[in-house]
């Protein structure tokens, strides 16, 4: 057991995997001498050499496309997209190729590849260093999309992702990198992909969240208990696709109230599927309409501080909505 923040956990977990299995390979922009712009692979080049730590050209489509080829020829590539905002040139390689390799070959070929991408806002990253992308890729059958938000889950799910026979988009909320710390077992272990997790028990309402919003929800939940005496159950989605609806339903059956929080643009966002599924499945268990809290439908998070704050659902906003729902 060691206390670590999220980025340190990613670094150490990748390091262990590289050490243990020569099939694992790192590729991406600035992952070599620079050790990654977030330092996720600091020291890797020196330790593992440039054959296994590839500084790629500035070309995301081929970062993913070449990783697909490597995965089909016996390696276990872990590709880093420097910012999730820059994964879009690789959309075709992910949607048309990676996600369909197994299906279109009727199981003959597989694509065991991990694509890591730091996403999310609140870091003064403006329009192109703040984006949430889970809704785009969660909609693609054949891709697994995970969003672990604690150091423990990050280690367990990163190992599970590298060990997965299918392509996994591994999303890391960059604001949690240094903000979120926690105890991490030193031994390797897997946290299964496709299982949500109750991060806080409660009876009065269910709050479903992930990424930075999960931590803000937990904060708001504690305050709600102290100040208003309502106990909120907080469910960490952890995996966007395949989505673990059962764990969410179970909680809502108990509390009778559901709230979904996500920082991405609200409309057609991932929270829509969660809200819709709850209402379709549990309409008669619900004591109140499902509440959805999402980012505004503007292209992205602006740079200037007052504008950025306007975008991000902060703990205060979340707290107020939770209180409303609890009192409903």
């Amino acid at each position: 057991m060691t206390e670590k923040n999220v980025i340190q956990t990613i670094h150490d977990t990748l390091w262990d995997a590289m050490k243990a299995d020569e099939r694992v390979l790192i590729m991406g922009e600035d992952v070599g001498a620079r050790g990654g712009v977030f330092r996720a692979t600091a020291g890797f080049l020196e330790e593992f050499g440039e054959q296994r730590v590839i500084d790629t050209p500035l070309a995301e489509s081929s970062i993913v496309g070449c990783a697909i080829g490597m995965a089909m020829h016996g390696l276990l590539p872990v590709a880093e997209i420097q910012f999730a905002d820059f994964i879009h040139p690789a959309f075709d390689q992910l949607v048309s190729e990676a996600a369909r390799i197994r299906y279109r070959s009727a199981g003959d070929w597989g694509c065991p590849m991990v694509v890591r991408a730091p996403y999310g806002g609140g870091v003064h990253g403006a329009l192109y260093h703040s984006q949430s992308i889970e809704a785009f890729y969660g909609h693609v059958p054949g891709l697994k999309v995970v969003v672990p938000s604690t150091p423990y889950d990050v280690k367990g799910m990163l190992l599970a992702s590298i060990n997965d026979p299918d392509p996994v988009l591994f999303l890391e909320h960059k604001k949690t990198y240094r903000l979120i710390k926690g105890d991490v077992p030193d031994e390797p272990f897997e946290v299964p992909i496709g299982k949500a997790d109750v991060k806080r028990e409660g009876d009065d309402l269910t709050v479903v969240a992930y990424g930075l919003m999960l931590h803000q929800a937990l904060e708001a939940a504690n305050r709600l208990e102290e100040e208003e005496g309502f106990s909120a159950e907080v469910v960490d989605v952890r995996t966007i696709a395949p989505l673990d609806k059962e764990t969410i339903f179970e909680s809502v059956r108990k509390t009778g109230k559901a709230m979904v929080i996500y920082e991405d643009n609200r409309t057609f966002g991932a929270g829509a599927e969660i809200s819709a599924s709850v209402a379709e499945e549990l309409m008669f268990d619900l004591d109140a309409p499902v509440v959805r809290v999402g980012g505004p439908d503007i292209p992205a998070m602006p740079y200037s501080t007052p504008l950025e704050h306007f975008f991000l659902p902060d703990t205060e906003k979340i707290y107020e909505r939770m209180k409303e729902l609890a009192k409903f």
Partner: protein
Amino acid sequence: MATRTKQQAASRHQALGLSDQDLLDMYRTMLTARLCDEAQFRLNRQGKAPFVVPVSGHEGCQIGSAWPFEKGKDVFLPYYRDMGICLVAGMTARDVFLGVFGKRDDPSSGGRQMPAHWSSRRLGIVTGSSPIATQIPHAAGVAYAAKQKGDDVVVGCWFGDGATSEGDWHEGLNFSGIHKLPIVWYCENNKYAISVPLSKQMAVKDVAVRAEGYGFEGVVVDGNDVLGCYEASKRAVDKARGGGGPTLVEMKTYRFHPHTSDDDDRTYRTREEVDEAKRNDPIILFGNYLKEQGLIDDEGIERLRGEVKGQVDAEVEAAWNAPDPEPETALDHVFARPGQGMGLKLLDGDRP
């Protein structure tokens, strides 16, 4: 004159290290592709094959360029036009028509993909899709993995002239140059991307010149000259195997039929142009060479054609009668079986 040709010619395939039997095998493979093509268009007209992709005209550059590869060891990334490549790699006429009819046992996709979307892990044929040029980075990735693991593998990647306009083409070729990968890039330049002529695709005469911009050699060959294609390909494959890095081989050829059974090529090219091109039919040219070499005569060619046609027709019949996929199986193979893993060593007990 005739004799001089003969001598020259004689010297030719022997100089290339090809035996007389090799030549007959190559010719037979070209005929098989041609006759499969004729059969699938017949089936299309009969309404038995809703969609087919022709190969006719490309047999020379395909069989010639694929021949130097080592089957069961090297890796092939063909595109939809490449029936000939896949026949060389080991696919059979049966396989072709199981795909044409979208049957359960279609080796490429079990009837999931359109015909001509080739795949066979056993044969080293990497699964391909419809989106043009997406296989280019895959090919570079396979070659990188082969080199990194120290496999004795050469990767061959085929595509049309149209593919050279895609960003993925640029990115993949650049990656292969940077890492000096064991790969050969083949452009089957048939002058059109469906209807779009070369003049609207590029401002250069030979797309092969782009290789220089990626730090490796580009060569141009007559794609209707099967031996010329073999020669260029052999040199490139040997170079790749020897660690010499990539080569871009541009093979000038022509597509005899419409783009697919859905296309009407009369809207964008004249019959004269097509007829003119057919005078350079690679099968006729190669047949002439075989005759000059005394390896076969017209009668022999007719006999062979009849024999191959008989086989193709039999395979069509067999494929037609093969079972369709079960509807519910559409749900299979989205992901690997639950619980299946890659055996990541770390998780197998090894500790860092």
